[in-house]
């Protein structure tokens, strides 16, 4: 039950962030919004980091450098997401984001990229993605 509530709230926060960012970018511009929201998020995380006991800084050295850089992708993610919400609204944006996200995960899984355990292609995942695409078509047309 507790876990369910946490997961539900995570979804709430993710969509809230998308909507709020999109609203902020209308006020001050896309890159201004991306910069400010990432900065305040960074400052908050840093503050929390100071208070948590476990600080595995050395862990960074054990990871392939390319994996450490993925945070930079957020600049493109956030600006695209804001612009998409302006163009097609929140529901369609979130739906398309989720489809792409799951499709990419699927692609990585079946190819075993980035050290992920390789998996065979299965029908349920294809049907799942097909259903999501049909859902988008129903939403829009």
């Amino acid at each position, binding site marked *: 039950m507790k876990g369910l509530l*946490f997961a539900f709230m995570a979804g709430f926060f993710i969509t809230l962030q998308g909507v709020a960012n999109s609203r902020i970018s209308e006020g001050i511009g896309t890159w201004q919004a991306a*910069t400010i929201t990432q900065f305040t998020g960074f400052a908050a995380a840093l503050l929390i980091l100071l208070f948590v006991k476990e600080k595995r800084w050395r862990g960074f050295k054990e990871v392939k450098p390319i994996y450490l850089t993925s945070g930079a992708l957020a600049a493109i993610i956030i600006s695209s997401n804001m612009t998409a919400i302006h163009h097609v609204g929140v529901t369609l944006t979130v739906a398309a984001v989720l*489809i792409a996200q799951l499709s990419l995960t699927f692609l990585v899984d079946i190819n075993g990229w980035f050290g992920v355990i390789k998996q065979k292609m299965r029908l349920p995942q294809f049907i799942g993605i097909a259903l999501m695409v049909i859902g988008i078509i129903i939403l829009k047309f």
Partner: protein
Amino acid sequence: MLIGLLLALLAGSLVGLQNIFNSRVNERAGTWPTTTLVLGLGFLASFLIGLAIEGKRLFHLEHMEPWFWFSGIVGVGVVVCMVNGMKWLGPTYTISIVMCSQLFFALLWDSFGFLGLEVVPFTMKQLVGVLVIGSGILLFKFGGAREIRAAVASREEA
């Protein structure tokens, strides 16, 4: 319309990629060092691209409202909820619920024009579309074949 969808697809693919990379870092460095690094780099990249595109205008914040400063902190809420959800439910259940919840709130806020959004009228079509997408997510996540990865991932979380 098309450009909006394409941008959303681009964002989603990059989110998928970012999640995989982040979980690699997370395994070694833990939640908060990882989160701090990810948001710090996101800030740096946004700042540099913004500076390149907008120049001095990046610092022009005419229509700034006080609450704009607090939106980024919502990201901390996301991390806390995800980590705790995973702890109780494991990755497969957590991600399925998170995704369905994202869609639910998207539909809700589009319908009410939350935060000054342009209202997208709530219709049966909207509801059916979202339910079909939701069932697609559940089928994807629980349609077998992914059990091995789920087991590995939950061991990594623990």
